[in-house]
């Protein structure tokens, strides 16, 4: 059986009806355990103090922000190449979730920056490129909601997603370049080599799993809603013609 059969709306609805509760419960479990573990039962970092606890929401949301866009890109390509409606609607469903993830990463980062860097916001390349990603999400969602015809909207947003991805990468390099010449204190940059100790590592993994599962749950539910909305639209169009 080919994977593409799940792109059939009826089959998709039938399958996901069974899957959604499972994923929802799993994600709630992972999130609860991971966050509670992280929040209550991990020691403070010797340098960052208790702020290190923010890592359990900051890092997972930052990862999901990027992964959501990647998923939308793949779904858009599938729609443009194979014309599977479910994938176009899944891209549409993922966008607001991705936008909220980006927002969470930005907000937690900003809150974290206040004690660590002494400022809410610095035009650090990583932060800046996240802000740009947020703008792309906004534009994508706005374009979806501005066009009435669902197929045309799917086509145009897919084109935007692809072109936007290229420009998002380009912006990343541009931003990196732009901030290079500036005497930004080393303390401002996040050191990727800095190892996270095991005490922080396992709850972090759980939290990440929780965010991934939460994303999957939300996207599935929203895709189901979009499919229903699409059928509603079709019924209304038929009624208008009759």
């Amino acid at each position: 059986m080919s994977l593409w059969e799940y792109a059939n709306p009826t089959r998709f609805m039938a399958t996901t009806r069974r899957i959604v509760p499972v994923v929802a419960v799993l994600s709630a479990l992972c999130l609860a355990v991971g966050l509670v573990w992280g929040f209550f039962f991990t020691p403070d970092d010797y340098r960052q103090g208790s702020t290190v606890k923010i890592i359990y929401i900051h890092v997972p949301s930052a990862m999901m922000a990027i992964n959501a866009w990647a998923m939308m890109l793949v779904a858009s390509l599938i729609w443009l190449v194979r014309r599977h409606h479910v994938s176009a609607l899944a891209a549409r469903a993922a966008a607001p979730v991705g936008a909220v993830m980006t927002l969470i990463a930005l907000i937690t980062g900003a809150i974290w920056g206040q004690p660590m860097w002494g400022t809410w916001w610095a035009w650090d390349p990583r932060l800046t490129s996240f802000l740009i990603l947020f703008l792309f999400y906004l534009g994508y969602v706005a374009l979806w909601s501005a066009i009435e015809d669902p197929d045309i909207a799917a086509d145009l947003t897919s084109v935007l997603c692809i072109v936007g991805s290229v420009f998002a990468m380009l912006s990343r390099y541009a931003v990196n370049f732009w901030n290079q010449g500036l005497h930004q204190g080393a303390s401002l940059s996040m050191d990727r080599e800095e190892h996270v100790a095991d005490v922080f590592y396992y709850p972090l993994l759980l939290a990440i799993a929780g965010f991934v599962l939460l994303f999957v749950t939300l996207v599935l539910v929203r895709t189901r809603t979009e499919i229903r909305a699409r059928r509603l639209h079709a019924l209304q169009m038929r009624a208008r013609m009759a």
Partner: protein
Amino acid sequence: MRRLILRDLALAVRAGGGFGLGLSFFLIVVVLVPFALGPDTSVLSGIAPGVLWLGALLSCLLSLDRIFALDYEDGTLDLLACAPIPLEGVVIAKACAHWLTTGLPLTLAAPVLGVLLNLPVPGFWWLVVSLALGTPALSMIGAFGAALTVGIRRGGLLLSLLVLPLYVPTLIFGAEVARRGAERLDLGVPLALLAGVTGAVVALLPFASAGALRINLR
């Protein structure tokens, strides 16, 4: 009039052209400024009040052409002109709805964006005050410009051109209040002047705008 405002708000929410887009534009302009000027936070924080005021003004500007043009195109404006409410009231209601969908959200969002530009902390409060006092004037002047250009197809650029010079006094006093607020200087005079400009604009321009509308409907 209350009905007209409510209807315009409903339209703005439904059509998705209201709150969201203006705010996003504001956000983008503020984000673009450091790209153009460089990421040096000390420079940015010095010019932050002015940049925020300019950004608010520009996002206000971009939504002006919706004030009357949509109603003109579908004939609603003709019908409103024949209705038993004065055209001045229509203008005020329209400007009011525009302010509620643009000026008010911008005012509320400005402090958040102030964070991005490292606006000094005492500046936040005065930024909000100056925007709250100044944006009604922006909407009213904008409604006047929109009334002047309502019959022109794709008149957006012309509208911006007409309106921008009219925005100068508001911008000067508003940005001055915000800047002095950020630097903890005395700001009584510009504040009074800003309030004066807004008061005068709101009191007088509805008549001019209604006149312009009447001429354009002929």
